[in-house]
């Protein structure tokens, strides 16, 4: 890649696969369970986190030499909170329906462990450009899992994708529903996300046995 050096490119590609924040570091599980019943909500959540984490990492990285280490958590919280409020207001202004679906979970991005984790682990020790790439990479890794989970949960649970009925109409019994197929109500409830994430972890670790922890 000409645009990025190999070291920088790894910042983006690592979290997508072998250092994924959800499946390997097991961070940010709560929001992955809560909002993945619909693909649209998953996508918006992924973009919101990408904005917060990318911008937040840059801000923290720029301030890293002037933040007293005793109060760094509070400073990080203020940065995250500011960015989250921006996201929340933008959503309310331009995508009101969606912001109602996401409800409290946009506000709860503040508590998403991935964000504080990256601030602590990366932005406090690296320059702004590399921090920015790291933020984008981790939020992409987070977003990919969210979208995979959202895809299966919406397809199997509601028979739709992005709200578009891909399997036919369950009420008038067209498409696949004419054969007696029914939506799986289990996929709508949050425990299903736990199982889908678990299956992703299972597949990933059986493809790459180096990821399996010794216990």
């Amino acid at each position, binding site marked *: 890649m000409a645009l990025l050096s190999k070291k920088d490119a790894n910042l983006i590609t690592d979290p997508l696969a072998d250092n994924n924040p959800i499946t390997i570091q097991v961070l940010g599980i709560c929001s992955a369970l809560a909002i993945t019943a619909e693909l649209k909500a998953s996508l918006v959540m992924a973009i919101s986190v990408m904005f917060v984490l990318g911008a937040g990492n840059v801000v923290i990285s720029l301030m890293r030499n002037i933040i007293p280490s005793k109060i760094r958590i509070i400073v990080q919280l203020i940065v995250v909170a500011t960015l989250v409020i921006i996201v929340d207001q933008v959503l309310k202004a331009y995508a009101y329906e969606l912001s109602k679906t996401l409800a409290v979970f946009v506000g709860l991005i503040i508590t998403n462990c991935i964000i504080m984790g990256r601030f602590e682990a990366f932005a406090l020790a690296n320059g702004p450009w590399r921090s920015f790439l790291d933020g984008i990479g981790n939020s992409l890794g987070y977003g990919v899992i969210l979208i995979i989970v959202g895809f299966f949960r919406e397809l199997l649970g509601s028979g739709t994708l992005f709200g578009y009925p891909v399997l036919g109409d369950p009420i008038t019994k067209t498409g696949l529903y004419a054969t*007696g*197929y*029914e939506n*799986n*109500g*289990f*996929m709508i*409830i949050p425990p299903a996300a736990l*199982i889908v994430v*678990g299956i992703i972890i*299972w597949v990933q670790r059986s493809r790459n046995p180096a990821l399996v922890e010794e216990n």
Partner: protein
Amino acid sequence: MSLKSKLHELKLKYQGKKMAPAFNAFHTFLFSPDETTHAGGTHVKSADDLKRTMNTVIMALVPVLIFSMFNAGYQHYSAINGFPADFSLMNDFLTWDNFWIGIIKVLPLVVVSYGVGLLVEFIFAVIKGHEVEEGYLVTGMLVPLIVPIDTPLWMLSVAVVFGVVIGKEVFGGTGMNILNPALTIRAFLFFAYPTWMSGDKVWVYGARERSEEILAGANVDAISGETILGYLAQNKGAEMTYSVSDMFFGFIPGSVGETSAFLILLGGLFLIFTKIASWRIMVSAVIGSLVMGLIFNQVVDFGWVGESSKFYGLMSFDFWKHLIVGGLAFGIVYMATDPVTGSQTNKGKWYYGFFIGFISVMIRVFNPAYPEGVFLAILLMNVFAPTIDHYVVRGNIKRRMNRLKNATIYPKDSDGKAEELKAETV
């Protein structure tokens, strides 16, 4: 060449190959293997292996299965023509017509359950490269007995794949699972397809079809297959026509195999006699459900819950009748006693069983959506079983430590040596 020697040759041929476990499974399922342990060795030789254990449970389940096949037809025709005025076992129940309904409705459930479940087991054995485990033999028989009779076969297949893979194989296969696989399958069906698992149209064959015909404009009478718990949950206990002996012998609607408390009791005695299932769990679960039922009856007697309450129907239900309706008896005898997912310690089994009975009746009364709680209670206690065992073992260690501390160590010496010795041991 006999079948046995053919299978043996096949086994030798595929030895070390990927498909070997699949052939070995057939071989050892039908015959005892040719290889024997060394004659002069000190091995314990017993026929009481996992296969024998599983087969004993299946033997205890066969009467229940056969009864359920007759009951399927009996409920179907009674719902259409009305219950016979003077019931005779031979003329009204054990008839070919009734059995035929069982063959076309119950048998496919059994076949699909075994077919899909064993297929998953074989695939996993081949992937993992070890022998096929016998764990599914009992699960495959339990599953068709705990679902409503109208369950579509594709739903059952999906649930069986889910239950075997997520409930058992991800934990490492037979003997390693935390949750009872059959109940995992039941819970999956309940949460995934609630309209097929509850209500008054799923328990009797034909009720759902009738209601669809009526919706389409056909001029036929609706038939209802409300369960006893369903009636009670809607405070319609007075409309119910089932006698206590109907409930005990099982001539009532319900999940396929759960209705006959009598045959389940016989199966339970058989399992206790053969020492396959734990009598401690069964007895304590019965006690637990009676205690909870008594508490609810007392609450009604004190007048704290009036007839206007939506819980009145189930709370005022005689406490001992909880045992003979719904799935409580079936769950206690065949599900709670699963040796893998239950408590292992004798003392723990008492707690484990007691809470299964206690919580079952509690969920029955307070769950507004679904007046049955046995499978939820057992799954909950499955999760708690290791914790119970942990505290029982720790309690035992503590008790013995105390005994050791207070023990007198002989010979008693006047120069204080005994005291030193005691301090060292502790």
